[in-house]
């Protein structure tokens, strides 16, 4: 799927939360159309890494470029960049006071200044695509977790982003709903969407990812194709991590 | 036992007589039973109790101002002392109670104080709830202006609606000046203290301060370079002693006492030592109004 042309490039990125060094000289390049899955024990910095890419978390040193441009400082330019990078959160974060349809059309109408009718038409198509067209007029609280997360994906897709960031998208879901969300993500991966996915779903990593990144203690420890990583992890820490999650 | 107790009482009585005798001139003739009053009268009760509660102001220079001594000083206070002396009670048995304008009637009606001497203007409205002895002084409302201002000559100078005048919230002078202005909303400036009025006058925010002449004289005495009086008193504010409405005997007693003080010079002496220092003239004693 990957064209090899880099879309997201991190170089020597460092970040501290007070005394805690959460990102330690992280360098990473994600090509257009590539699907990169980030795994690692909790507290390893993988969520923070994901959130630095659209600058929800500012970094202390290093550079991040998106589509050839360095991330701008807070302001209009950053807002424009963020509109090109979709993000899906662990806790969905659908706007609680708006209907599902309004959630999906808000960005296109307010940020892209699309005509409401056109935005609505595309939103309904996206909701249909993620399988919840019949929920369009409901409020988020009326939907199940799986439905909410699919709505959140539709909301991100409505901006026609160049890349999608997933921050543990299935961690807050009941087990029976994980599948429906992963199905949507898998189909997006197949269609060539550039994706950075922080997850514990090893199945998804195994068959949908182009590369698996393993992080521990704020460092990028391994970077390998999934088949190679799962069959033959090079580092002790990765082996240890895999043994813990795969025995269950 | 009985004999011992009687003896002890006799010693105590002798001691107290001795102490009273040592009190000097001002306490002459004080002590329980030192004067004879009609049985059951307020005077008799106070004389027997040998203490009295008097309401006065603690913030009125020249009349009732509590200073460093911790006790109020001023003309009202001196007048009250003359009455207390006549009751046969020593000065140091007076309990001074602060009675700002707002609480004077209620303090008398509720019995919080036995009498009020607090720049207390006699008027009919107040007579509905309490009674007045006196007057012992005739004050009057006047107007203070900036020294260089000759455009204000009296209350009628406010009629054209341009001059602004300041006084204190809830005071009679404030209500009085409202009758002389064209538009209360744009001409009358109330503050909580006369000090603020004075500052506003000095700054030029208002053109005049109005209240009783004695208060204004106090301010002029302190800053003659800035302020002056504009014309004569335009109201008569007879200051009286407030007592319970139904207590006619006490009122008569105070009236008699005041007349005696007018005659024997103690009234003038009280004035000269207090408000008189501000340069205000006292004039002749007012006529006591025995209504």
């Amino acid at each position, binding site marked *: 799927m990957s064209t090899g042309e880099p879309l997201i490039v991190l170089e020597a990125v460092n970040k501290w939360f007070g005394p805690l060094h959460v990102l330690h000289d992280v360098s990473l390049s994600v090509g257009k159309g590539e699907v990169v899955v980030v795994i690692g024990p909790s507290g390893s910095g993988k969520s923070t890494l994901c959130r630095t890419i*659209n600058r*929800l978390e500012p970094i202390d040193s290093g550079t991040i470029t998106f589509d050839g441009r360095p991330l701008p400082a*807070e302001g*209009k330019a950053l*807002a*424009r*960049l*963020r*509109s*090109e990078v979709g*993000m899906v*959160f662990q*806790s969905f*974060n659908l*706007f*609680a*006071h708006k209907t599902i349809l309004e959630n999906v059309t*808000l*960005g296109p109408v*307010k*940020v892209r200044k699309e005509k409401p009718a056109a935005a609505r038409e595309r939103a309904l198509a996206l909701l249909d695509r993620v399988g919840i067209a019949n929920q369009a007029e409901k*409020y988020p*609280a009326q939907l199940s977790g799986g439905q909410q997360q699919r709505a959140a994906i539709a*909301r*991100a897709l409505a*901006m026609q982003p160049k890349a999608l960031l997933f921050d543990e998208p299935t961690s807050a879901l009941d087990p029976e709903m994980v599948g429906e969300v992963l199905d949507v993500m898998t189909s997006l991966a197949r269609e060539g969407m550039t994706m950075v996915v922080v997850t514990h779903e090893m199945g998804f990593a195994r068959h949908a990812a182009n590369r698996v990144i393993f992080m521990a203690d704020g460092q990028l420890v391994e970077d390998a194709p999934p088949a190679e990583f799962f069959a033959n992890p090079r580092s002790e820490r990765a082996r240890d991590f895999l043994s813990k999650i795969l025995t269950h | 036992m009985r004999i011992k107790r009687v003896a002890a009482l006799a010693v105590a009585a002798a001691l107290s007589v001795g102490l009273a005798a040592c009190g000097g001139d001002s306490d002459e003739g004080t002590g329980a039973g030192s004067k004879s009053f009609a049985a059951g009268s307020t005077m008799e009760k106070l004389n027997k109790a040998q203490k009295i509660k008097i309401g006065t102001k603690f913030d009125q220079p020249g009349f009732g101002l509590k200073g460093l001594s911790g006790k109020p000083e001023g003309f009202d206070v001196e007048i009250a002392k003359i009455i207390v002396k006549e009751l046969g009670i020593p000065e140091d048995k007076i309990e001074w109670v602060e009675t*700002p*304008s*707002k*609480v004077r*009637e*209620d303090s008398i009606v509720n019995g919080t104080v036995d009498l009020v001497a607090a720049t207390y203007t006699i*008027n009919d*409205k*107040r007579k*509905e*709830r309490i009674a007045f002895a006196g007057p012992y002084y005739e004050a009057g409302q006047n107007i203070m202006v900036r020294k260089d201002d000759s455009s204000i000559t009296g209350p009628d100078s406010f009629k054209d609606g341009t001059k*602004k005048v*300041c006084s204190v*919230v*809830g*005071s*009679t002078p*404030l*209500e009085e000046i409202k009758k002389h202005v064209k538009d*209360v*909303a*744009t*001409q*009358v*400036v*109330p*503050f*909580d203290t006369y000090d*603020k009025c004075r*500052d*506003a006058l000095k*700054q*030029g*925010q208002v053109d005049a301060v109005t209240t009783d002449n004695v208060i204004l004289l106090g301010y002029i005495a302190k800053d003659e370079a800035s302020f002056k009086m504009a014309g004569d008193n335009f109201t008569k504010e007879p200051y009286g002693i407030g007592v319970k409405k139904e207590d006619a005997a006490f009122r008569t007693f105070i009236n008699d006492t005041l007349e005696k003080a007018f005659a024997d010079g103690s009234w003038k002496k009280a004035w000269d030592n207090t408000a008189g220092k501000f340069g205000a003239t006292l004039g002749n004693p007012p006529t006591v109004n025995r209504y």
Partner: protein
Amino acid sequence: MNVLIDRFDVFAGGFWLTFQICLLAAIGALILGAVVAVLRISPVPPLRAVGTAYVTVFRNMPLTVVMFFAAFGLPALGSNADFLRIPLLDQVFSRLGADLPYFRFALIALVLYTAAFVCEALRSGVNAVPPGQAEAARSLGLTFGQNLRHVVLPQSWKASVVPLGSVIIAMIKNSALVGFFGVAGDLSQSADQLTSAEGYAFIPVAIGISIGYLIMTVPLGALLDRLEKRQAVAR
């Protein structure tokens, strides 16, 4: 209790003036308070500092001091607060346009003081909105202003209504101070006029004044309760 009937004009006049100053001050404080709240939550550090400084100063100073600065500081600086002589508005609220500036000074003091509390009430509402809401809006590319307008404020409103109501009710009661700073004839001053200067008994007058304030505060409280309930139902 005759005073309530005999001097009804004094109570009514006082009520009307207090009502005017409270209405104007409430509008002013809500607007200024919202601006300060936006400063305090803005992503730009210097603006945040300005907002925080504002709240620190005006929330911690006694209102009498603020009133004093307005009544004596502004004239010392040569200002008569003429910018508040707003055309049309001064037709309804005649003292706004009057030559005598104390109504405007008192209004400025009440607005400055109350805005600090309005800001904090609004901010507590904003803080009650889960941070993920604003994050989701940011990641969609909404600007700070759009984020506030479309996502955060509509949701914070519900949590702000009750504290805001308390702030405005406190302001109505605080307005009793204006009479001591050059504004003639507000509701509290009516009490002083009737008791001190005219010699009416204190209790009936106090009852009359209390009724005046309750007429303003009780319906406001009821209105806020209803607003809150309606918002709750809408969820």
